[in-house]
């Protein structure tokens, strides 16, 4: 079973992630943990020093963390973005699209299920900044290339 699924080459950060409140007092931390009610934009001035942002999903149905992830990536954060908590295998591909590149689910995934979920979608409809070219772009590439 998979306890930490990671799509990065660099070494994982060893330091524990601190809360946003603790982070504002102790500004040398390199890992921080966002709760659903935290504003991801509060971290934007500190992105250069952060190597890991954990985004917590206390319940899989609370989707605020998806927006938090995209906001960080849109601001240029290129450190590790880890989904933690009640992260379910069927959410994996959507979380990847929002910019998450590691996953520490409370209940470990079966590797086969994780693989199936991640390879599910041949294409995507939206541009989300994850580098995948959306279908609308592919359509018009194809047209201009004849």
């Amino acid at each position, binding site marked *: 079973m998979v306890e930490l699924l990671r799509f990065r080459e660099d070494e994982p950060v060893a330091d524990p992630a601190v809360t946003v409140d603790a982070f504002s007092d102790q500004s040398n931390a390199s890992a921080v943990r966002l709760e659903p009610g935290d504003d991801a934009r509060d971290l934007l001035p500190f992105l250069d020093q952060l190597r890991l942002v954990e985004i917590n999903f206390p319940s899989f149905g609370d989707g605020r963390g998806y927006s938090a992830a995209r906001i960080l990536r849109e601001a240029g954060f290129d450190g590790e973005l880890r989904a933690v908590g009640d992260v379910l295998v069927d*959410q994996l591909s959507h979380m990847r699209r929002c910019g998450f590149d590691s996953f520490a689910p409370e209940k470990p995934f079966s590797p086969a299920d994780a693989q199936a979920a991640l390879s599910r979608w*041949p*294409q995507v409809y939206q541009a989300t900044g994850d580098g995948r070219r959306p279908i609308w772009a592919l*359509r018009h590439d194809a047209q201009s290339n004849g």
Partner: protein
Amino acid sequence: MYRYDHYDQAMVDSRVEEFRDQTRRRLEGKLSEDQFKPLRLQNGLYLQLHAYMLRVAIPYGTLSGAQMHALADIAGKYDRGYGHFTTRQNIQYNWIKLEEAPDLLADLARVEMHAIQTSGNCIRNISSDQYAGAIADEIIDPRPYAELLRQWSSFHPEFLALPRKFKIAVIASQTDRAAMKLHDIGIRMVRNDAGEIGAAFYVGGGMGRTPMIAPCIREFVPVDQLITYSEACLRVYNRYGRRDNKYKARIKILVHELGREEYTRQVEEEFAHLLTQGIEPPLAELERIATFFADPPFETGLADDAVRSDPGFALWLDRNTLPHKQPGYAIAVISLKPVGGIPGDASVEQMHLMADLAMRYSFDECRVTHAQNIVLPHVRKADLFAIWQQLEAAGLGAANLDTVEDIIACPGLDYCSLANARSIPVAQKISRRFADTGKTAELGELKLKISGCINACGHHHAGHIGILGVDRKGTENYQLLLGGSEGDDTSLGKITGPGFDEDGIVDAVERATDVYLARRREGERFLDTYRRVGIDAFKEAIYG
């Protein structure tokens, strides 16, 4: 109408395989019901009162003949020989087996259909004007914009776990036939002074237990920023919509609590940021989509009238057809409201017939209306009589569009696990009462809408006459509302007073209509008279 290319088809096919895999894991016990529920809901599968219920998306209500045939086949193969057309222009099947649902979705995918996001806390099927592309009063066909939004909202990874469900309607006419201002986002395509097309955004409307009319937050969003602006509206909602109380989680509450100005400010700020992110499809994509909605090859020089020799046909012609933008053609509405029938239900045979009529007489197209009827949008007037004869023979010839018999009703406690009271028997009794007394025609336009609970799927707030079923100490009880409207003059109905039992509510409705007949002035509809004389005259007659 829109046709899938290999990309669209691959997405829908992948979804079927995803759901097949999820269903297998559920049946094997790898997924609990709590984990499976949001997954099945986002594929339209509910657990209802008697069985699983599947809601199939009909994007902006538009169907080809082949698709209508396929819906009929599904009703026969997987259900008990009928389907129910809904107030969101979709169709529901009431008796679906979980183990067969993936095969059903595969059958749908073969005709470019799906059940994606027809339930759950996500962006739902996008609704539109049922007369789009056929009616003279539109400034442009709204459906290309709806299709662009459909693709953007399908599997949008950021917006699959919203605080609550999210409904979008797109219209492009001054006449609102889609209850646009009662949606989470209502979009009206408009033309500015320079003649450019853009979108007016109305955000934060809705029915349910706290009905609200959406305020306009921006009068003109350029078409090449439509998706970006929508994304900004959704992101602010996803981040700040309430999640502590399911009944306060819709965007209408956020807009109400923040105030229109503050919500708008936040959207504009997010919009300015998102404009830098390159998320908007190019105009070429909108143009590609729009080519699918070009006018069909209308004939010119056709006679512009129909022979009215049969009185039954003449009645149907007057009541159920509308002027078409093209001379010689008409818009024909098939009423799914036979007197004493179940509003919105159609049998396998009826669906096949409607599919055949669409193929033969309406350029292979039909529409589902939010009032639970079916439209043949492009019919030669010369063919209307033949169409009517076939409808009559199939029990589909009711000439009662927009009358007191044309009742919107949710499935109610006969089918729905959320309902507090039955809706359908009330609708049946009311339509029988007015058909028997012969007052239907005299009453003219009268929109009557029935919901079996506060969730308001039957749009009771927006009925000229609304009925809300409640549970009073274990027995069904019905409250009467007057004065709602969902058109350009959107208003919310007011409760008249204490509720009634099933027969009592039918009497109360009749007494309200008697007040109208006694007090109306020349040219006034029920709603107009109500607005002029006020609720007290009606209360007096009802409770006396």
